[in-house]
């Protein structure tokens, strides 16, 4: 899998997302609770753009009348028909074996780490204090 540096962490605000065209696909990177998640920007149902999805909590109920709310912001609710997916792995919440969104590994690395390696041809001043979001496709 190829690694793509897509953004500085500061470019995707908390609770927000940004879409990147990577290898011919639109991939949406979400910033939720300090973490970054990358998914194909397309609901597997009818193709809705997931960049418009709501990041909601997981709501469970052991019996009618009793409700539990957890994993706040970590469930992706499709902007059209409301299908819910786990933002960590793209699995649907209602039928995880049959429906999932393609998800991609995401890493956050500092400028200093990215600057290392054998292919440094020329040196330029680098703001090594910055963190970068990297998506593997």
């Amino acid at each position, binding site marked *: 899998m190829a690694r793509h540096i897509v953004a500085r962490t500061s470019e995707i605000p908390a609770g927000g997302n940004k879409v990147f065209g990577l290898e*011919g*696909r*639109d991939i949406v990177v979400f910033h939720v609770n300090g973490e970054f998640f990358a998914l*194909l920007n*397309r609901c*597997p*149902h*009818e*193709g*809705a*753009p997931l960049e*418009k*999805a*709501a990041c909601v909590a997981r709501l469970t109920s052991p019996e009618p009348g009793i409700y539990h709310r957890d994993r706040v912001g970590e469930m992706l609710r499709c*902007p*059209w*028909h*409301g299908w819910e997916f786990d933002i960590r792995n793209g699995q649907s919440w209602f039928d995880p*074996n*049959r*429906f*999932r*969104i*393609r998800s991609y590994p995401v890493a956050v690395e500092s400028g200093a780490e990215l600057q290392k390696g054998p292919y440094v041809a020329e040196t330029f001043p680098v703001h090594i204090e910055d963190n970068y979001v990297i998506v593997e496709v």
Partner: protein
Amino acid sequence: MSDVIDRPMLDQEKTAATRLKIIDCDIHPSIHAHSDLNEFLPKRWQQHLKEYGSHLRTPYIGTTPYPRSSPLIARRDAWPPTGGVPGSDLDFMRKQHLDPFDVEFGILQVLDLFIFSQQNLEFGAAIQRAINDWQLAFWAHRDPRLKASILVGQDGSDLGLAEIERCAKTGEYIQINVSPRANEPLGRRRYWPIYERAQELDLPLGIHVGGYGGHAPTGGGWPSYYCEEHQSNAHTVASNLTSLVLEGVPERFPKLKIVFIEGGFGWIPATMWRMDQHFERFRSEVPHLKRRPSEYVKQHFWFTTQPIDEPDEARHLRQLIEWVGIDRLLFSSDYPHWDYDDARYAFKTPLTEAERRKIFNSNARAVYKF
């Protein structure tokens, strides 16, 4: 097997999807602001709207009885970037829906101001007149693809008939819309003058689900959840279809065309089977029917496809389509509402090119005479 969609949408797919021009029988325009209606609404009723607002035949005042899934029942991506509510910005509608889907004609279905549910019939009629004019001025005259319907409240049938006359003279409206939730089932004789006039004018009768007629929306009473209430759209259409057929409306008005909008179509086969079965046993109760109920359904009624049923196995959808009849179905998207159907992906069963052509275009072309 996991239905992982991990491929980009290919250019050829886009081409295939848009090669066939689509007639979309259910597009919802919205009023940007009530003041947009002022030029069409007499001062007396502007004042009434401002001072009294809507009084509806429901037990809930000033709100909808159910939470409606998402604000204004809209897709989250359908809020215009320029502000305003989903469906209120023609340019954005063009960009998001009409142009990319190559919509040849789009039929407007107005739901604003609870147009059919106003308790004050004269106020309701004034709002209907204003919205009928607004449909032309703000939509159809600005984009020739968009087609308006004559909205009439059938419970004030003299007011409704006058409105039909007024609008029909313009030659610009393509159907007459009535409510599925009137005071009585739609087949009742009190509504026949509207059907008679629709037949004479050769305008299809459009019946879009929604609204509240004062009765509980299900035969079992008021539901607890939106999830539950949303199911009732299909029941409402089924009971009105049954009423229209069994009361003899198609028998009495053999050239009348009736289109049920947004009721889906999965329930139709069983409804026809059951009506036919009952007809065999009880035909002496309804001797005015000359044919089996299903024959009336297959000659006089059409159904828009959204919200499409999604059985676990695609072949079951295929069977449903065949049982209903490929010539009965008219594609609709319900743009910009949350249960919108995307023309490319909604039919999760193979259709031949000829079948696609019928459902997405030529059936509607024949019904509405485009």
